[in-house]
């Protein structure tokens, strides 16, 4: 009898191994990317040296001198370029975050209406989708800006509620002045939200177990209102409301929602929501008819069927393309430059112009947009794995 030890057969060459092959391919790709980067980088350096140009980020510390109209952090032209770019980035994030939230709400709403049995309703939504998707988004942004600029002048500002003013210079609302009391109140609000969420979860768990419904929303509301107020008492400061008031040329005090921001947000949301609506429609249609029939047999109302049965299943189809709409919205926000909203792209362009450091600023800008896109995609991937069909 002959025995063959495995070693005699000879281990198969490593490239027959799937994992090893994949690793090797990845390594080769990485090498190619690095090599290409090195090539481009040295090319840039040679070209710049030939021009007598130098590469460097020292300018970031220098006073920028450029005015920025609205900023989430305190900014004056005496601040550095680094801070100017940060102010621009925060303006981009402001549009991206609110944009993605609103576009989800509007998109789902329209997607559901699109499937309405009422032909007038679904027809209207269909027309909206076709019109909005087939006109250039830049034009839409300018359109909204022009619309907001048709509002009355500052001196004739609309005053729908006490302390609230609406004019072609934007919306002015009363706001808490930022002091210790406001900071404590903010912490209190965070605690309040945590407490409210915890209470709601407990009530829900209780209902699951016993079937008994507990009315907790008044308690939750109490947490949300009382905790911030209580926290504010812990300091010497008091909560102060800053109310907008017409002084000379403009309203002073209060918080501002500028027409540029409003136009950008409205334009991007209305545009992107048309795409999201189609995604939602196809998602809903992908759920089998049997699901509707079964749910009706259980006696559920149409609204609840949609919310509890259909949409959760449709999410599997909706989430991946929705991610790319979020990315589109974020990237399209750079069109802000057309209507004078100073986002990252706009501040970067101005910085390039004032410093001449084109390569450096473009590098920073591209890196930031890349990171934003990757973060969004990563977050949505996590969410997607949670809603994806679990194969058991």
């Amino acid at each position, binding site marked *: 009898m002959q025995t063959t030890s495995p070693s005699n057969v000879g281990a198969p060459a490593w490239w027959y191994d799937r994992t090893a092959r994949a690793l090797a391919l990845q390594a080769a790709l990485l090498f190619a990317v690095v090599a290409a980067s090195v090539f481009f980088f040295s090319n840039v350096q*040679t070209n710049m040296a030939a021009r007598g140009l130098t590469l460097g980020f020292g300018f970031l510390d220098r006073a920028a001198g*450029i005015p920025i109209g609205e900023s989430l952090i305190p900014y004056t032209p005496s601040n550095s370029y680094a801070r100017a770019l940060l102010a621009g980035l925060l303006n981009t994030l402001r549009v991206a975050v609110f944009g993605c939230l609103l576009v989800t709400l509007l998109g789902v709403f329209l997607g559901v209406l699109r499937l309405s049995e009422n032909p007038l309703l679904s027809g209207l939504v269909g027309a909206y989708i076709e019109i909005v998707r087939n006109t250039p988004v830049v034009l839409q942004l300018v359109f909204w800006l022009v619309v907001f600029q048709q509002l009355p002048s500052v001196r004739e500002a609309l005053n729908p509620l006490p302390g609230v003013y609406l004019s072609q210079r934007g919306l002015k609302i009363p706001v808490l002045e930022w002091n210790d009391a406001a900071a404590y109140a903010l912490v209190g609000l965070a605690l309040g939200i945590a407490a409210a969420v915890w209470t709601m979860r407990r009530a829900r768990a209780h209902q699951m177990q016993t079937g008994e419904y507990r009315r907790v929303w008044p308690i939750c509301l109490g947490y949300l209102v009382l905790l911030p107020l209580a926290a504010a008492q812990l300091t010497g400061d008091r909560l102060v409301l800053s109310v907008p008031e017409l002084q000379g040329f403009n309203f002073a005090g209060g918080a501002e929602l500028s027409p540029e921001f409003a136009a950008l947000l409205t334009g991007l949301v209305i545009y992107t929501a048309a795409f999201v609506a189609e995604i939602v429609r196809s998602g809903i249609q992908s759920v089998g008819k049997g699901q509707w029939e079964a749910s009706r047999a259980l006696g559920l109302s149409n609204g609840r069927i949609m919310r509890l049965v259909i949409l959760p299943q449709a999410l599997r189809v909706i989430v991946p393309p929705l991610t790319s709409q979020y990315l589109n919205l974020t990237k399209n926000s750079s069109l802000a*430059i*057309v209507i*004078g909203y100073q986002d990252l792209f*706009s501040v970067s362009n101005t910085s*390039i112009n004032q410093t001449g450091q*084109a*390569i450096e600023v*473009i590098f920073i800008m591209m890196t930031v947009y890349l990171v934003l896109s990757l973060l969004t995609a990563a977050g949505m991937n996590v969410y997607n794995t949670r809603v994806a069909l679990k194969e058991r």
Partner: protein
Amino acid sequence: MKFATIFAASAAAFFVFAPAAVLAGPALDAIKQRGTLRCGVQGPGNPGFGVPDTQGRWSGFNVDICRAVAISIFNDPSKVEFVPVTTQSRFPALASGEVDMLSNNTTWTLTRDTNVNRFNFPAIVFYDGQAMMVPRRLNVTSARGLNGATVCVQPGTTTELNLADYFRQHNMTFRPVVVADLDELRRTYDAGRCDVYTNDFAALAAQRTLLTNPRDHVILPERVSKEPLGPAIRQGDEELSNLVAWTVFALIDAEEMGITSANVDQIAASSTNPVVRRLLGAEGNMGESIGAANALYARTIIKTVGNYGEIFERHIGTNTPLGLERGQNNVWTKGGLLYAPPAR
């Protein structure tokens, strides 16, 4: 948007892809080899300084400066290609070689002359200063009364920097509205979004002609900065620099000497003044010295576009919609700042 993308892309693409060798040769050689001068001028929203007519033929103060330089180089005013640039795209366009020269109200500043960009400003063609325009109904008479105002301004300019300086210096605050596209900026001001529109005085005068009711707007008396405007080229080509400078000087000299497009031939034939004869190429070798296409460059320039004063009056002077006075932009013998070094 277009401009911003194009300029960002061209700046990036240029630095990444352009082979190093192309950059070495002097700019003037490249222009001659190509057969045209690429001149960066303002987009179509700048009456008086440079606008295309319905046939696409450009005309304006800055445009004639380009034509004069083209005559010096090629003895042919048509060998210019006009490339519209914006305040944001102009420097990348020049740095990357997309244009050979800017002639678009660009201010000569230390940073632009020396910093990373390393441009050159061979001569000053217009002495300007920044001003503020306000609607008449605001009843403002001085820039010092603008505390708290909303101000419309174009980015990438000395204008936005001076604006911040001026308000800081006078302890005043302002709310900027920064719009890159000139037409969009003007529309925004016209709609009432801003109390103030600020730019170089001459540019404001030009923009005012395009407002719905130009008469409803006043330009406040203060000049908050010095804005010496002139053609800009890349550093590193002394020949081109000389040629541009002496082309401008020829325009100024001609006015000082009373030589116009109407009388240049007659003066060239009859003048016994050696200074005039040297300028017009009847004597000496000025043309050769500056590297011009021929000895008669100044004569051809004056015949074609006129002297400095003729160019000024034709496009931006008192008989045009801009209605600018000569003021500082007059020859020194008439109390202005225009003073050309001697051509000898």
